[in-house]
């Protein structure tokens, strides 16, 4: 395996039919890092992975491994492993053969191939299905084969495209732990695409948030989670309440349409009078505040409830609470100023 110290993406761009699917992605990945790519469906995550893997030619930009220019090498010469979003299993090979294929390609000895294949299959709990063909497996089982196939070769860089999307919660948790363990014990570098924020936050060293092919924010999980760079990231990161308003005297804003003033924390440059968007997560809205709201919708989510409530002055809020509420109940809501983020409301 080609070990490296640093992987550098420099303005990596990929267009389809003239439209940017990925636009000027620049990123430096240190050896051993666990990077998660996050963003709405269609934002260019898979495109980024494919470019990195060498499966799509770049429209512009370059990729460097230490001082070697990588983007002209064919995929098989880059020494990366990949879990495909659509699995792309070899339909004519049993689970076993799918998994051992990469080892054979890398000239690993027979005995070792057997051992590592068995281990990888055990890792993803498919011992009983080892001789089945992919077409005879359930969706989740197929996905696990894809994972095993990618990690068994212990590549210097693993690219994973939503590798756990078709697994149940328990298994996902288990696999997540295994992936993290492998990452650490083998000293892999991992670029991981997921739509599961919890997964991204818990696994990764750094997050890259994309939107419409453009990087929105790169940062540690905590940074992205607590200080989203803009309203889109906030929106994406679970700040379900996005309240339009106008900035006024520093860290407060006048909510629209009511004109009520609340305090918040500005992110970026917010000037008095600017239109802003205030963002706050459902779970951050206090239920012991001073503003009255009426419960509209209640959804059960396993011991917690997601609630939609409307304040008297017309604000629609998403809340979360452990207490059972019913439609029509009155609650008193409040916004902790440090949790209410104020973003400039750009046109786009």
């Amino acid at each position, binding site marked *: 395996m080609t070990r490296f110290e640093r992987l550098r993406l420099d303005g990596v761009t990929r267009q389809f039919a003239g439209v940017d699917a990925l636009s000027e992605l620049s990123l430096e990945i240190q050896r051993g890092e666990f990077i998660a790519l996050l963003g709405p469906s269609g934002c260019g995550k898979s495109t980024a992975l494919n470019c990195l893997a060498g499966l799509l*030619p*770049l*429209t512009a930009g*370059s990729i460097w491994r230490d001082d070697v*220019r990588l*983007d*002209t090498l*064919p995929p098989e010469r880059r020494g990366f492993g990949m879990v495909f*979003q*659509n*699995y792309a*299993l070899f339909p004519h090979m049993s689970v076993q053969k799918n998994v051992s294929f990469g080892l054979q390609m890398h000239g690993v000895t027979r005995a070792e191939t057997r051992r590592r294949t068995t281990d990888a299959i055990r890792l993803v709990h498919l011992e009983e299905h080892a001789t089945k063909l*992919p*077409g005879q497996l359930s*969706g989740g089982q*197929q996905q696990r084969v894809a994972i095993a196939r990618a990690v068994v070769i212990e590549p210097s860089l693993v690219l994973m495209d939503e590798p756990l999307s078709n697994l149940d919660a328990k298994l996902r948790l288990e696999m997540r732990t295994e992936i993290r363990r492998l990452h650490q014990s083998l000293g892999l570098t991992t670029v991981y695409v997921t739509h599961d924020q919890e997964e991204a936050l818990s696994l990764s060293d750094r997050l890259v948030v994309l939107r419409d092919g453009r990087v929105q924010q790169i940062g540690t999980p905590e940074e992205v989670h607590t200080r989203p760079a803009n309203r889109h990231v906030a929106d994406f990161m679970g700040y379900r309440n996005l309240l339009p308003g106008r900035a006024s005297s520093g860290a407060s804003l006048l909510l629209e349409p009511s004109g009520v003033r609340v305090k918040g924390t500005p992110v970026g440059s917010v000037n008095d009078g600017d239109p802003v968007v205030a963002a706050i997560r459902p779970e951050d809205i206090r239920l012991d505040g001073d503003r009255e709201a009426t419960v509209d919708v209640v959804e059960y989510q396993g011991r917690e409830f997601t609630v939609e409530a409307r304040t008297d002055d017309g604000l629609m809020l998403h809340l979360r609470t452990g207490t059972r509420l019913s439609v029509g109940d009155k609650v008193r809501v409040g916004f902790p100023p440090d949790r209410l983020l104020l973003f400039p409301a750009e046109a786009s």
Partner: protein
Amino acid sequence: MTATTVAIRHRLAERGVDRQMLLLVPATVFVVALFVYPFAYGIAVSLQPAEGGLLAAYQAFFADAYQRDTIGTTLAIALPAALLNVVASVPIAYRMRGRFRGKRLLTTILVVPITLGTVLTAEGLLNFLGPAGWFNRFLVTTGLTDAPVRLTNNYWGVFFSLVITGFPFAFLLVLSYLSGIDPSLERAAATLGAGWRQRFFRITLPLLAPGLATTFCLTFVLAFSVFPSAILVGDPSGSTRVISIAAYEAAYVRYDYAGASAAAIIMGAVELVVIAIVLGLRGLLYTGSTAGGKG
């Protein structure tokens, strides 16, 4: 490696030009060395008739109705035969998609006629469908007809021989192309309320169409260049005087190589026109993976 060469390589890669094009080299070298060069010579020969100018051989061909009409005669045999072969293969192959007992045997039997060769086919047609063959004996003995039916030494003899040799050819290809289509697509269509007819015409057929176009081209070429059976079971001076007979006679009876090359090149050109139309239409179709999603 300079930045510009890298950039060029990317540009080229995006347009489909990369190292993998080397895979084309052996075939191309081969065809250029062993076909293009001799063929250019063949064209040159057609342009050097014993008498007359450059295009005299072509002019002679088109000026003589007896020669010119061979184009129409050949098309009148080849197009229906090729069409029938392809069209008949599709429902039979379609019926044979799933697994059932005896499928391999049935496939083998359907494909058997490609092993017959033109001679056995011709002999068999003459023996079986001839005036005193089993078929006519059966018709006459059972009183279905008074006199033997003429099925050989005419258009139908050649047509049957093209069906017997061409059908298995088309069937084998269609069956194989069909097996490459993901069966779950038809299932998806079924859950959307599509009956077999709609599943077939809306899902399977469009995905099969590129393969059908290729199959048609190949069976058409096969039928268009029909030669031995046009003579053996046909009416080679009349209704089955196909263009290859014209070429053959020029070359091997009159030893007029310019005329023969001209006829043969006209033959190729007519085929090319038909095939260009079919492949042009194929280009409008969806060609690509027949998989429908993950997995």
